[in-house]
């Protein structure tokens, strides 16, 4: 059996083929320009001074020595941010939101995590800037930190914000709290569902904070011109989001901010927040020079992105026939220093794979003294899946039901209503489960002691949001495709393929370019598995616009009504006169002499969801002496709807799996008792290397999404969801005891073995 299988239902000419990506040559030769590669006349380098404490009051900041240091051009603190001179009266109901956003960029009264920015310097070189930040004197009054949700939820917990009140199912509490919000989903009658069950299991789970781990550190270059035009070059998943955030925090007109997205070295959800951009802009304004800021790897760990650590409880009931009757779930997610964990998404994903008649999910968003959490691939879903799928696995063991069979009996399918409301359209979970059961991995028995097999399913919404594409026809019959979606993993190719397919021209005849925020309509982030779906949709609509204009032009040239002209397979023809026929290329050549060039444009905001599902199989072997887990074999099955570029779909699946393996086995923020991260380097924060892994086998299932012209569902998020439970369950089977806490590093596995 081959290791990469595509179960295709529909064949196209360009879509579904494995083309060379347009930006490929630049990326294998070192020519591609990433954010850190920006060079500008008079460019200064900046450094950020960060808090050494996890929780402290800022008593005073003295920047005079840094300002006097030779080679220093500007020093900024939170006092330079507009928020410092705004009052509650100025901002009204927006006060707290802007306060949190501004203080996150640079702390004013309090530092809330180790690594929280307190000041920044622009100087003639990084080394001089580094010298200068060490000359800044900050007086802190250290406060005990609250580091975990359990700690932070205690009644006498150390409070991060004295003005944060719990939003309790929509009502504000009367006492400040670290619990920012409590939300709930309910369906059916939970008590009745538990009564109907023959087996009821309740288990508790914990997962650690983990980082997205992109190899390129955050960077930002800004130039604030004397006329008020602010230009920013940065590596971001969302140039328009950066534009909005920068304009908001700096109280600057959005039209005076231009963000140029450079090539980006990984994001996974972690490169959406504007961390450095407002600071670089302030330094530039003060120095009247362009300023570049780069984070070190330690800064990346300590001050950007982690996915939340969690505390979860799951109670599931099922009949002896293997039907789930009830699910009662408690999720408490770390938000980091400011509210906004993905607990809502975790709650909505927790039971999405199953038709559960009676369910209750309570979710808590809890602030702790860690960096503010950021999105990480299917935010919230992997943790929730770890808890729910692990309990399902244990129920299967108790009932003696095959885990794939159990999931098939309960699987979500068309018409099933999710606990938070939406009803599924045509989805492919059943097909994924069947493909897993038919795979030779599933049929092949384990072949040694201390081995275990795990299986788990996972879900992500795959929503659309806004995208824009312009397509201009060149005189040689090729087209230029202008898009606002940053290309992180081959999306130039997948967007160009959809345009080429729609126009009926060759893939090589579409030249895609990603442009700045002045040059294309609003486009949401490259994230949430939305790009190939929504920007692909925009490309299809822009291509349809081109086709319509080409038909009009042919009609004009042939002096015939538009209705007589047909566009098919990249050619225009007269419906009744076979003599009148032009290829796309032939007409393209005539455009300039017959009324000017043609540009098709589209702005889309597709509603509905792609709804992606995956099912993973993993075999592990546990070393009984050391507790070390080896991944022996891994197979990921996923419904892609339609794989526009199968190689990059496989790449998303394999990459997501390996991030999940790291999350399950090794990765973890390790803090000392003062809340300081002790493993903020790639040496100590151990991500998987090539040596730790086998090949990752894939099966792409194609159950077309009825809500997309080519059936695309989006693929990037789902593959990080099943690995946590699949690996946890595989280890549990290998050692005969349950793994309910991640990471399952050697020490934890030894402990679980007892």
């Amino acid at each position, binding site marked *: 059996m081959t290791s990469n299988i595509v179960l295709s239902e529909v064949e196209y000419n360009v879509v579904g083929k494995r083309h060379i990506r347009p*930006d490929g040559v630049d990326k294998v030769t070192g020519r591609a320009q990433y954010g850190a590669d920006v060079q500008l006349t008079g460019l200064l380098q900046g450094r950020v001074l960060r808090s050494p404490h996890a929780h402290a009051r800022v008593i005073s900041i003295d920047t005079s020595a840094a300002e006097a240091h030779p080679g220093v051009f500007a020093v900024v603190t939170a006092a330079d941010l507009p928020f410092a001179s705004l009052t509650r009266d100025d901002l009204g109901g927006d006060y707290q939101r802007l306060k949190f956003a501004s203080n996150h960029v640079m702390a004013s009264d309090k530092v809330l995590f180790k690594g929280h920015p307190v000041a920044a310097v622009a100087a003639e070189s990084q080394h001089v800037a580094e010298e200068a930040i060490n000359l800044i004197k900050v007086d802190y009054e250290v406060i005990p930190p609250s580091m975990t949700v359990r700690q932070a939820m205690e009644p006498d917990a150390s409070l991060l914000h004295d003005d944060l009140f719990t939003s309790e199912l929509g009502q504000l509490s009367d006492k400040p709290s670290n619990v920012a919000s409590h939300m709930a989903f309910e369906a059916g009658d939970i008590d009745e569902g538990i009564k109907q069950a023959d087996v009821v299991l309740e288990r508790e789970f914990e997962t650690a904070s983990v980082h997205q781990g*992109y190899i390129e550190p955050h960077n930002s270059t800004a130039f604030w011109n004397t006329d008020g035009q602010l230009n920013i070059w940065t590596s971001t998943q969302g140039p328009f989001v950066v534009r909005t955030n920068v304009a908001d925090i700096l109280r600057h007109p959005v039209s005076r901010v231009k963000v140029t997205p450079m090539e980006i070295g990984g994001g996974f959800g972690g490169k959406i927040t504007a961390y450095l951009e407002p600071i670089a802009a302030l330094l530039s304004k003060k120095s009247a020079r362009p300023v570049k800021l780069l984070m070190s790897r330690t800064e990346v760990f300590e001050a950007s992105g982690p996915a939340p650590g969690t505390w979860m409880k799951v109670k599931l009931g099922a009949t002896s026939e293997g039907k789930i009757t009830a699910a009662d779930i408690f999720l408490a997610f770390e938000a980091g220093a400011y509210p906004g964990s993905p607990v809502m998404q975790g709650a909505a994903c927790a039971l999405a794979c199953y038709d559960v008649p009676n369910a209750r999910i309570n979710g808590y968003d809890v602030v702790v003294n860690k960096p503010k959490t950021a999105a990480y691939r299917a935010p919230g879903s992997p943790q929730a899946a770890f808890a729910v799928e692990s309990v399902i696995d244990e129920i299967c063991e108790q009932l003696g039901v095959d885990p794939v069979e159990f999931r098939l009996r309960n699987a979500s399918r068309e018409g099933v209503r999710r606990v938070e409301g939406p009803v599924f359209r045509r989805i492919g979970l059943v097909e994924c489960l069947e493909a897993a059961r038919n795979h030779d991995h599933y049929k092949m028995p384990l072949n040694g002691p201390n081995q275990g097999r795990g299986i788990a399913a996972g879900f992500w919404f795959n929503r659309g949001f806004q995208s824009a594409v312009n397509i201009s026809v060149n005189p040689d019959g090729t087209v230029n495709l202008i898009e606002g979606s940053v290309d992180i993993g081959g999306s130039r190719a997948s967007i160009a393929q959809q345009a080429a397919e729609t126009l009926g021209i060759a893939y090589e005849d579409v030249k895609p370019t990603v442009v700045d925020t002045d040059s294309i309509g609003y486009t949401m982030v490259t994230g949430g598995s939305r790009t190939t779906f929504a920007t692909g949709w925009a490309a299809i609509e822009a291509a349809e616009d081109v086709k319509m204009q080409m038909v009009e032009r042919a009609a004009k040239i042939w002096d015939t009504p538009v209705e007589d002209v047909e566009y098919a397979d990249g050619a225009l023809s007269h419906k009744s006169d076979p003599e009148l026929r032009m290829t796309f290329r032939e007409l393209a050549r005539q455009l300039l002499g017959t009324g000017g060039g043609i540009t098709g444009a589209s702005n889309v905001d597709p509603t509905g969801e792609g709804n992606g599902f995956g099912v993973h199989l993993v075999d592990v072997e546990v070393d009984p002496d050391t507790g070390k887990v080896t991944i022996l074999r891994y197979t990921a099955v996923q419904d892609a709807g339609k794989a526009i570029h199968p190689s990059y779909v496989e790449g998303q699946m394999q990459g997501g799996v390996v991030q999940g393996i790291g999350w399950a086995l090794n990765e973890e923020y390790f803090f000392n008792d003062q809340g300081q991260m002790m493993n903020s380097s790639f040496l100590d924060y151990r991500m998987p290397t090539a040596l730790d892994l086998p090949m990752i086998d894939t099966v792409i299932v194609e159950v077309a999404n009825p809500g997309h012209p080519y059936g695309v569902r989006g693929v990037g998020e789902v593959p990080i969801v099943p690995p946590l439970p699949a690996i946890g369950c595989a280890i549990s089977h290998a050692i005969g005891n349950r793994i309910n806490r991640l990471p399952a590093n050697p020490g934890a596995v030894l402990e679980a073995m007892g």
Partner: protein
Amino acid sequence: MPGLVHVSTTINGNPTDFLCEPRQSLLEVLRDVLGMTGTKEGCNDGNCGACTVMFDGRIVTSCLVLGVEAQGKEISTIEGVASPEGLHPVQQAFLENAALQCGICTPGFIVAAKALLDREPDADEGRIRHWLAGNLCRCTGYDKIVRAVLDAEDKMKA
């Protein structure tokens, strides 16, 4: 400010002179002094391999080498892997096998993979995984990278 040091070296076969501060790493010199930004910074402490270059025939992470140490040495970087005739087979194999997603680790992987195949043209999967363990990739899960290196072996023999 510390004084600048004059360094004479060879980069990608070309005799090259530059001035640098004694505290500047070779990575900084390549990127900031010479404008050769193909070599990437991922961690600046020798753990990710994005800044991999060849230094007198040995693989090094250029963030852990000082610029002044380049005196009299032969350095080759990602910019020297392709020739006027076209891409190196390793580069071509990375393209055809979709062995890159974001591409930030790619220059380091290509320099390291080429070094392996130059000395061990028949390296098997296990050997490739061992050799490339010093280069971190967060996007691909390494599967397609390993396959690309195996494919490059075939291309180099053809």
